[in-house]
Every structure is written in structure tokens, then in C-alpha cells.
């Protein structure tokens, strides 16, 4: 099951971020933040959970995450949000880890288990119990029952039941995670295991209760926007995330307080050229994996170490853009704005950006400042790609297409290419096999999100509509004056 791009849960998250940002922009954060849960769920309002008090408690935790705090670490339930806000303002840096679980929002989904449904006929053959290696199936009143303490979830009973009466109840977050980094603890509450987590963000999208949240950098970024001291580095997937087209989005970013706007697509041009060169010079008997998707690179580092030597060492589009930004605007904080939750690891490790925001968070900033993007004039970016081609990095197939086009400019043939479009369990296994050399050579383009960055967990635009907007940029893109 796929939840719509935007739903009630994402609405609430964005609207709360909007309210928080509004207070931060008007210097009233500490004074007002403890009011927000009450204003969002006033007395006599309708409620989502059992009562407005629980709703408010959850809103409090959402605000903590938006302030950048880890909800799991809360020691003192009576502590005011104002004191958390104060800490955020003083700390003034991006939070360390990226995801946090709102344990009281987690509904402790029943699941991960096998269960017998009412379809059970209590047949004579009873293949379920005959095939159970743990003797976990017993019959009560002629119907099968699984004893949970014995069941090891092997699924044999489910496969042999002639009535399909046995189901495997999935926990959405667990099922979505390709590396088993999220699992329920003894209390049934989901927990993220940082040593395994690749920050792909799948669980945050899969959870119907929106209980997995990002620890946001909104507040420290807003503080810099107020001083007009921040560089926006925009990912190519920004096309179609907001109305009005690229030129107007750039104007809107300047209205917010960004002093310069740089296209990460310009960095992507360099990545493509360099990666093409690396391919030509590399050992042609083994695969070369692309380097730009940080969730997949994390997956390789944490889970598929054999593939690590095959990952391209070419700097990512963000690495190039970040380097250019610090050359042009030394000491001004750089903010990468993209669809990605994993980019934060990359930005920190490679020091390519001081802060990372998602499009959803940027959207909340636009709302907080009442910016009507579609009514603005268009502006040019301060650093831009030479052509629209590299904007294709935003979609699956686009990175390989750019590398191929660099090679063809040198009169070389396109390399044989394998696409891993969406890093699920199958994709992970493919990388494992690839590392052993059994799948041959060529370029391997890996995107952790199916469809590419345009479908990332931090997006707000419908992928199909966004794709149209992206194509427009690709076709009509001209380099800014600054470039020519």
C-alpha cells in the first residue's frame, strides 16, 4: 500500500512546521511555543486519537522533533517546550541523528506475526500443523490457533493452507525498511537501530500515524535567514515541488532571506564528466556504482561492504556545489534543500553543507512567510548549469544518461548500464551479487527511492506533475548571466 504523496498526516506535520516557523520569524518562539498544541487542538475540537489531551501530547513531541530534539531521549515529561526551544537556539547547529520516533504516536501496530483468520475450516489434513517446525499450531474447537511464543514466523503454514486462511500481518514501517533497521521493542513500539539505518526515509512515509519524524534544522536555518546570511543549494528535484516554475521559486527563496541560490544541477554536470572519466580509466571488468545517492552509499557502507570498492569516488553534485559556494561566499552557511533524508549524513561527512532542509520544510517556510510564489517575478540563480541535461539527475535513469552523454561527446560508446531503481531488499541482494563480480561490468546507477529523487521522502509535489515541471526545466534551461 502506498499512501498518497500528501495526506492528513503530512498536512498536520507541514502546518505545525508553518506555525513554528512563524513564531521563529517573529522572535516569539520561546514565548509562544507552549501554546501551539492548545491552539491546534482547542477544547471541544474534534480529535484524532482517544482525546484531545493525547493529541496535544503528540503535538508536543512533533514540535520537539521540529526543534531538532530526539523524542526518545526525553527525561522529564513536564519540561516546557520553551526550554527545548531555548536549547535549540543556543545549540545553533544541525541535530546529530536524523530520524526520531514519537513513541506515543506509534500505535504499536499488531503485526509481524502470523495469524489464523476465520477462513480456517479446521480440515482433516491439517497441513499447517503438520508442517510447523515448532509445533506452534494447536486446535481449539476445531480451528487452528498459533501460539505466538512458539511461532518463529517461518511462513510454512501460510504457504500450505489450502484455504489461504493464514495471514502474515505486516508492520508498515518494518516492511518498508530494506535493511531491517526498524523493529518493535518489547513494548511493541518501533525503534530505529542507528547502526543499521541508512536514513532512506521509507519508514517515515510508510507509517500511517506519521510517528517517524525527522529531527529538523528549521530553527537554526531561520535564524540565519533573518540575518540574510544563508546560501540555498537547490536539488534538481525542486522542479514541480512548488507552483510557478523555477524562476519564481528562486525569487521566493530570496524573499525568505537566502542571499544566494545555487543550482546543484551545476555540480551534477561536473559529477557526470568526472564519473565518465572514472569509468574510462577504471578497471573495465567490474561494475562501477554511481556515487550520488547517499542512502545507497550508506547501505553499502553498513551492509554491503564488498561493494564499497566498486562505488565511484567521484564527488557528488552536492560536494561540487558546496565547494563552489564556500569559494564564492566564504563563511556564509550553506543550506542544501532537497527531497532526501540521507543527504544530511553526506553533508556532515563531507562538509559540503552546514544545514539540510527537505522540500516539505521549505514549503512550511513559504507558508510561514505568506509567500505566494506564483505571483512573483522570475529571477536567475546565482550559479547554474550550462544546459538542462544535468537536471535529469532528479529521476531514475538520469545519472546514467548524463554519464553516457559525456562519453558520447568524446566519441565513446555508452557503457552497459544496470539500474537499481528503488533500493528494496531485492536491490540490496543485487548489489551483493554484483560485488562478487558475477553480474559483469558496466555502470550501475543506484537510486534508493523508486523513481529517483523526485519521489524522495521529503517531496511535496505529485511525482507525475513534478516530472512535467522538470521536463520544462530540462528543455528551457539557459545558463544564468553569471555563467556566460
Amino acid at each position, binding site marked *: 500500500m502506498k499512501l498518497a504523496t500528501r495526506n492528513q498526516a503530512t498536512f498536520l506535520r507541514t502546518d505545525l512546521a508553518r506555525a513554528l516557523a512563524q513564531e521563529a520569524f517573529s522572535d516569539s518562539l520561546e514565548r509562544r511555543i507552549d501554546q501551539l498544541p492548545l491552539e491546534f487542538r482547542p477544547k471541544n475540537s474534534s480529535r484524532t486519537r482517544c482525546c484531545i489531551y493525547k493529541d496535544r501530547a503528540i503535538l508536543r513531541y512533533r514540535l520537539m522533533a521540529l526543534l531538532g530534539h530526539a523524542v526518545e531521549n526525553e527525561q522529564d515529561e513536564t519540561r516546557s517546550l520553551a526550554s527545548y526551544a531555548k536549547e535549540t537556539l543556543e545549540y545553533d547547529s544541525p541535530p546529530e541523528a536524523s530520524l526520531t520516533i514519537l513513541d506515543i504516536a506509534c500505535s504499536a501496530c499488531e503485526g509481524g506475526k502470523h495469524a489464523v483468520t476465520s477462513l480456517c475450516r479446521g480440515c482433516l489434513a491439517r497441513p499447517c500443523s503438520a508442517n510447523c517446525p515448532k509445533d506452534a499450531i494447536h486446535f481449539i474447537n476445531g480451528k487452528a490457533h498459533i501460539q505466538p511464543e512458539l511461532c518463529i514466523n517461518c511462513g510454512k503454514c501460510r504457504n500450505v493452507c489450502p484455504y489461504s486462511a493464514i495471514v502474515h500481518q505486516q508492520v508498515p514501517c518494518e516492511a518498508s525498511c530494506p535493511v531491517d533497521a526498524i523493529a518493535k521493542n518489547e513494548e511493541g513500539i518501533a525503534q530505529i537501530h542507528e547502526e543499521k539505518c541508512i536514513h532512506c526515509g521509507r519508514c517515515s512515509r510508510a507509517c500511517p500515524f506519521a510517528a517517524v519524524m525527522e529531527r529538523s534544522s528549521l530553527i537554526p536555518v531561520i535564524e540565519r535567514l533573518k540575518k540574510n546570511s544563508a546560501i540555498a543549494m537547490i536539488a534538481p528535484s525542486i522542479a514541480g515541488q512548488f507552483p510557478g516554475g523555477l524562476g519564481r521559486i528562486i525569487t521566493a527563496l530570496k524573499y525568505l532571506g537566502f542571499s544566494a541560490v545555487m543550482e546543484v544541477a551545476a555540480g551534477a554536470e561536473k559529477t557526470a564528466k568526472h564519473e565518465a572519466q572514472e569509468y574510462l580509466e577504471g578497471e573495465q571488468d567490474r561494475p562501477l556504482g554511481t556515487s550520488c545517492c547517499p542512502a545507497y552509499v550508506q547501505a553499502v557502507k553498513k551492509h554491503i561492504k564488498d561493494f564499497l570498492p566498486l562505488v565511484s569516488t567521484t564527488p557528488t553534485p552536492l560536494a561540487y556545489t558546496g565547494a563552489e559556494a564556500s569559494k564564492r561566499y566564504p563563511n556564509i552557511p550553506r543550506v542544501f534543500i532537497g527531497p532526501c533524508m540521507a543527504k544530511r549524513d553526506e553533508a556532515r561527512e563531507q562538509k559540503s553543507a552546514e544545514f539540510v532542509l527537505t522540500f516539505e520544510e521549505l514549503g512550511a517556510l513559504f507558508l510561514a512567510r505568506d509567500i505566494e510564489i506564483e505571483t512573483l517575478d522570475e529571477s536567475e540563480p546565482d550559479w547554474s548549469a550550462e544546459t538542462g541535461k544535468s537536471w535529469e539527475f532528479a529521476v531514475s535513469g538520469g545519472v546514467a544518461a548524463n554519464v553516457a552523454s559525456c562519453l558520447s561527446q568524446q566519441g565513446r560508446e555508452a557503457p552497459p548500464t544496470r539500474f537499481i531503481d528503488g533500493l528494496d531488499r531485492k536491490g540490496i541482494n543485487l548489489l551483493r551479487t554484483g560485488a562478487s563480480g558475477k553480474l559483469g561490468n558496466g555502470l550501475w546507477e543506484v537510486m534508493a527511492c523508486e523513481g529517483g529523487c523526485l519521489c524522495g521522502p521529503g517531496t511535496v*509535489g505529485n511525482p507525475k506533475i513534478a516530472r512535467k515541471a522538470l521536463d520544462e526545466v530540462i528543455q528551457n534551461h539557459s545558463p544564468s548571466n553569471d555563467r556566460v
Partner: protein
Amino acid sequence: MRTIVVTVCSGTACYILGGSDLLTLRDHLEEPYSRHVMLAGSPCLNRCKDRSENKRPPYVTVDGKVYGNMTLETLVKTVQSVLDAS
């Protein structure tokens, strides 16, 4: 069946809060309904500032009437029932 105009608000608030999903309406309408719909985007309909309960973006007008808090499913249903009644 009449042909009706469906206007999806593409102001900043509506677009971010789900409006862009609604722009795919045509993919989710069956015949004969889809032939009787003219789909258009529109700048901010000036409804988004109203934060009273149960009213929220994204806003859409269907045959001149404004609806808030729209999802693809509710939009498809609304369009069908307006067309059925026409």
C-alpha cells in the same frame, strides 16, 4: 451530461498541501466522466487564510462551487456526483 469546469487551486498553500495530487484528476476519472471535465489550475483562491475547523487547503472549485480539504478520492466522488446530477 453537461461539461463542467474543475479548478484546482495552485496557490502556494494548496499546492504544497496536496493540490498537486489533484492535478492528476484526469488519470483517475473513468469514461464518460473524464470527457465532461475541463481541468484548470488557478492562482490562490483566497481561502487558505481561513483556519476555522474543517476548512483547509487544498481548495477546488467544481462547477462553480468551492470545496476545501480535498483529496483525490473526494474530488473524484464530487465530480462524479455533480455530473450524475446534471
